[in-house]
């Protein structure tokens, strides 16, 4: 007689990644570091935003970049001009960063630098609106970028990314007058699934909106340091 049995497993498929992400965050917390995970499709402007952020905030905060979206050393060279540690991660042909890859970056930070010196670690994820949304890397907040050239329908099509974001930067707004994009509709589309997200319109070209973004980063850092201080 053929008898079958069932074994209940009830384990999340992302369990291992989640454990790794929690572990990474414990490291950041111990060192007093706030970690932001920057995600967008390719070409939305993550690297230029990082350049502007490093230039504007490097005298205010001690920063490091964990660079995942890098096909060549060109991106890293662009960022190293700002005298900030840039830790490249070899993502291979991966479509997203996972907590294990970022753990490798944290290891470098720990062994080549003095991690307690840092306030802020910016992780540049692989350019992709789908996969990075599912893989937490140990960040304290998720930052999504969407350029005006991508269209107002993207939040509806890639909802998980926009639902998870704590801050959304609408980039390349200097181009908006030349496009048919409806920015109000774009905001409404995002609000359908994320009523609390901070939405900031920026142009790295003209500098418009960047000070708002820098303020957001500063506030997030303060908020995180306050909550860490409460835990101690």
């Amino acid at each position, binding site marked *: 007689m053929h008898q079958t*049995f069932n074994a209940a497993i009830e384990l999340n498929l992302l369990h291992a990644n989640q454990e790794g992400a929690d572990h990474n965050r414990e490291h950041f917390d111990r060192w007093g570091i706030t970690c932001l995970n920057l995600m967008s499709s390719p070409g939305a402007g993550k690297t230029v935003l990082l350049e502007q952020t490093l230039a504007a905030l490097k005298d205010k905060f001690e920063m490091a970049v964990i660079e995942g979206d890098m096909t060549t050393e060109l991106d890293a060279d662009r960022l190293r001009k700002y005298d900030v540690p840039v830790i490249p991660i070899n993502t291979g042909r991966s479509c997203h960063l996972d907590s294990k890859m970022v753990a490798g970056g944290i290891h470098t930070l720990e062994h080549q630098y003095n991690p307690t010196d840092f306030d802020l670690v910016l992780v540049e994820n692989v350019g992709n609106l789908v996969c990075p949304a599912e893989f937490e890397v140990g960040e304290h907040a998720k930052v999504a970028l969407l350029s005006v050239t991508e269209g107002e329908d993207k939040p509806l099509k890639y909802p998980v990314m926009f639902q998870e974001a704590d801050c959304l930067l609408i980039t390349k707004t200097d181009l908006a007058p030349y496009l048919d994009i409806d920015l109000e509709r774009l905001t409404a589309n995002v609000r*359908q699934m994320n009523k609390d997200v901070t939405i900031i319109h920026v142009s790295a070209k003209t500098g418009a909106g960047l000070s708002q973004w820098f303020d957001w980063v500063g506030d997030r850092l303060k908020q995180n340091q306050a909550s860490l201080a409460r835990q101690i």
Partner: protein
Amino acid sequence: MHETDMTKALILTVKDWYYSQPEQPKIEKIHLIVGEFTCVEPVSLQFAFEVQTRNTFLAGVELIIRDIPLIAFCHSCQQEYQPEIGLQYSCPDCKSPMEDIRSGRELKIDRIEYSAVANSVVP
């Protein structure tokens, strides 16, 4: 293709279970639960599973994926509704943003169906 990574995680979990058994059973089916509001495509998962289990202890094992619809709860209307993915996420009645997701984010291994090793059952 993050389904490849997820399949790796799936295989590792099943492997742990398999070797923790006093006698290695014959695994027949693996039941997964995949919510609609995840970035996982069941077809890709099936394909990755088939490729990655070739010539392993899981070769030929059937992967059964149960889709779970996206269900949200509107606090203003005090009722559940089913958002239309790609089109409309806010409450169809009062237009409140989707806030409370009741189902659709699942991504888990539900259970393993197995039979005792053929040799030990049949005399």
